[in-house]
């Protein structure tokens, strides 16, 4: 009896101890609930109020991130709280915050409170995903993200949105199913749900390998890496811009972190190399499909969807290299990637507000409003990965990490990834330049000057400035990331 008591007390202590570490998540949950209740109670126009409240809760979550000491395993090693998860949580909150100050869109006239609630849920899911070490928690987090995403896709209440939402749901369900199958195989093979226990054990036979791949499939779906990318263009085109901005950053990076953990937990070298090899070929194909697909697009959001497929290929390089340098670089890349995407989608939102949807509609805009023109150039050059922008530093660091792994390991597929990845920059330039090309080289057809407010201009200038700073003082951010050796030390 005494022994059971002791075990119970230990467990309870673990739980209570763990709860204290979940303060940021609790802030998000309470934010979601408060807004949901508010929506039920108040019937009037509360959009501004809800946005304001969201910002408050984001600030609370942000503050609590710094209060909670972030280290160690929680709830009996179900969650990992470390600097990796901390960094990405900061990125998520920043993205969330920027998405709240997007210029208002037409569909917001419906004044739906569910919008804020769902984004809170999505961010909560992402928070859990970057911390998850247990397959069940991971699945929970993934579904939390997915279900919120399905609804958010069609929240514009138009035909396109419903179509895309259903498509997304079907693909998502398929991916989840496949992944669950893989998870159950893994559980059957190892008798544990703990990712570290599963992957650090002996890996024998094809079955184990297949199970790992099936698990990875679900993650690739959120990353929109080929071959799980098909949903991306439709969803990006149909969903409201602020939602797409969130989609293009938060679920993607959360999945990236989980993928990183999964691959780094694999202790069997030959299995790890095999997994990495497959991911790197998928990355190469993603870059080509994304970049070649983007060339033919005229809708700005659709083009960005293909661009995000290509960028998924670059992001997973961080997973492929499996070194401290690689991890630092991929965090750098993630920050720059979020900034660039937020900037571009902010710009697209400003344009959509003025009924400019296609790239060809952007004719002459940059000429009339220089701030828009210049920030367009900065974002697009950065997305392509050319100096002097953060996009260049990010790509440069990532590829340097790739090369140094290649030098030590001499695995030939890394060299091909290196070369194909850099060649893709040229293809990317071709379509990214289309936007500044239209807006600066061409003259406007419509006579009306697009209405871009001072606030919009300030946000655009600020994001462009940050992107430039990340080139000229790249060490400011990079040195912050220089404490991740710890992630590798928890490996057995």
């Amino acid at each position, binding site marked *: 009896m005494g022994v059971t008591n002791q075990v119970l007390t230990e467990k309870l202590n673990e739980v209570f101890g763990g709860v204290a570490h979940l303060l940021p998540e609790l802030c998000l949950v309470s934010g979601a609930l408060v807004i949901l209740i508010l929506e039920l109670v108040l019937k009037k126009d509360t959009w501004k109020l809800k946005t304001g409240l969201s910002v408050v809760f984001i600030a609370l979550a942000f503050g609590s991130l710094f209060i909670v000491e972030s280290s160690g395993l929680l709830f009996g090693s179900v969650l990992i709280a470390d600097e990796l998860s901390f960094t990405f949580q900061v990125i998520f909150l920043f993205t969330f915050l920027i998405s709240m100050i997007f210029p208002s869109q037409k569909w917001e006239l419906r004044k739906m409170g569910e919008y804020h609630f769902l984004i809170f849920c999505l961010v909560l899911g992402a928070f859990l995903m970057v911390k998850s070490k247990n397959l069940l928690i991971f699945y929970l987090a993934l579904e939390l993200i997915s279900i919120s995403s399905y609804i958010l896709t069609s929240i514009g209440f138009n035909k396109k949105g419903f179509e895309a939402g259903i498509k997304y749901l079907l693909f998502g369900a398929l991916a989840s199913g496949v992944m669950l199958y893989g998870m159950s195989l893994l559980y059957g093979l190892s008798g544990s749900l703990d990712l570290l226990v599963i992957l650090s054990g002996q890996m024998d036979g094809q079955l184990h390998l297949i199970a790992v791949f099936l698990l990875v499939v679900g993650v690739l779906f959120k990353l929109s890496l080929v071959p799980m990318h098909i949903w991306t263009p439709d969803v990006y085109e149909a969903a409201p811009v602020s939602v797409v901005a969130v989609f293009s950053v938060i679920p993607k990076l959360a999945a990236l972190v989980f993928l990183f953990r999964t691959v780094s937990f694999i202790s069997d070298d030959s299995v790890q190399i095999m997994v990495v090899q497959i991911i790197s070929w998928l990355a190469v194909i993603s870059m080509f499909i994304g970049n070649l697909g983007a060339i033919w697009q005229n809708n700005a959001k659709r083009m960005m969807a293909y661009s995000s497929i290509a960028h998924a290929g670059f992001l997973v390089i961080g997973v492929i290299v499996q070194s401290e*340098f690689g991890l*630092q670089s991929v965090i750098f890349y993630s920050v720059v990637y979020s900034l660039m995407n937020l900037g571009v989608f902010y710009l697209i939102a400003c344009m959509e507000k003025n009924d400019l949807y296609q790239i060809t509609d952007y004719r002459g805009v940059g000429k009339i409003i220089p701030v828009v023109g210049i920030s367009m150039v900065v974002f697009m050059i950065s997305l392509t990965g050319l100096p002097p922008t953060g996009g260049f530093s990010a790509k440069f660091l990532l590829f340097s990490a790739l090369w140094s792994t290649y030098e030590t390991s001499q695995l030939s597929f890394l060299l091909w990834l290196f070369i194909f990845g*850099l060649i893709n920059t040229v293809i990317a*330039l071709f379509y990214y*330049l289309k936007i500044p*090309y239209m807006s600066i080289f061409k003259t406007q057809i419509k006579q009306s000057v697009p209405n871009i407010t001072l606030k919009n201009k300030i946000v655009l200038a600020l994001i462009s400035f940050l992107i430039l700073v990340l080139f000229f003082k790249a060490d400011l951010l990079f040195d912050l990331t220089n404490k991740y050796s710890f992630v590798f030390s928890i490996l057995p």
Partner: protein
Amino acid sequence: MIENHLLSLLIFIPLIAGVVLLFIPETSSGLYKWITLGTLVVELILTLILLSGFDASQAGIGNESLQFVEKMDWINLSIGSTSAISIQYYLGVDGLSISMVLLSAIVLLIGVISSWNIKENLKGYFSLYLILTASVFGCFLALDFFLFFLFFEFMLLPMYFLIGLWGGVRREYASIKFYLYTLVGSIFILIVMIALSISVITPDPEIDIHSFDLMLMMDNANFIPDSVLSISSSDTLLGLSYRLWAFLFVLIGFAIKLPAVPIHTWLPDAHVEAPTPISVVLAGILLKIGGYGFYRIAYSIFPEGAYYFGWWIGLFGIIAIIYGALVAMAQSDLKRLIAYSSVSHMGFVMLGLAAITTQSISGSIFQMFSHGLISVALFLITGVIYDRTKDREISNYSGLAAAMPYFTVIVLITFFASLGLPGFSGFIAEFLVLAGAFDGAMSSEVIAIFMPIVGVLGLVLGAAYFLWTLQRMFFGKYWIKNEEWTLPDLTTREYIMFVPLVVMIFAFGIFPGLILDLSNETIMSFVEFVQEQGKQNMTLILENTK
């Protein structure tokens, strides 16, 4: 004070002026060109101060003898606890880059004067022009690979807009083509830059500091032992050692810029569509960055490549000479003709570099300088005609000498200088290249003896198309296609551009020492370095990768 930061001033004055322009309201748009002109005059004065303080007896190979050096830490990235990447703000000049800086200062100044009658969107034009100026100087002064790459790459953006916004009818096609072609080249260079920076460490015992210092990269001792780019590495890719691949990649990257046949096709389009001042800058300076990159990066870091691929470099050099000349002969558009003549003349630069003798490389460098001046004059000539009639078809004009006698004198001198008449700078350059190439073919057997022989043929072809053009357009009975065209003789502004150019082309033809003495010491030690180190590395590589 000024001496210590002379090179930074050269880069930052135009940059700051470019930004200042953005804040001057459109109402006083007349100011823009004067500010730009003033900035470029200041640049020229600074360059002359630089020249007066330059000691030509210093070789400049290796760290010790570089001059006006400015070195600061710029970006320091620490990786884990055991290594770091250090990017430096590292500027300096040696005998070779100083002549390129002088050329840039002259050409860019003339470029502003020829921009005088740009009409639309003056603010954008002149601020882009100033940013271009800053990156051109940066490119010739940077001694850190990262910094060099930054300027090299950043130059494309203002060029893209300058061609695309102020160019001719097909300007959009030409500007994107220019951008994509040169970007392909930059990617090749970037690949090598990343690989090099991971392989090269500063001689520091405690932690590995990966460096971009071009001077460190020249010394085999600074490579991490057994890293794939080190000399002792035995790894090969498709049967070729990694160092040779790296040389080849850099070579291709800069050959696109030069441009070498068959990757020259962006050049005629860019030239034809670009406005006159931008053609002037493109032909006068940007092409030279290709040649400068051969010298500064490809040959200096991988000297063995100069031996291994020397024969091919020479071959592509003479292909460019002959092909460029033949295609030029077939052109009906004057500007296109001159663009192809550029391709032909830049072939001499490659041939001279391939031969690896002091004479031939001096010739290459002198050719870059002299072609810089001559091509500027040639493009200004097309500009003069185009400004008056908006037409450049050779067959639409005849007997222009009657209408524009003074202009015809200028054209005569420039054309003769370009076809290599003794007494002009072009002759000295091409003579040195060919003589050096004969010498190189006899002694070191890097290039074959037929190459300089065929190269001489290029001179004949050059004479043919220039004389033929002269005869068709300027001599004979005065006739122009459209009666309404008026063809007044040169204006004062045009004299201001042409007279100094013609004087310089003469002066450097009669006193080539003015430039050659600057770079002589550098070139001698460079050739010595490439010959010794190249042969030594070649033997080591062949042994290791057997």
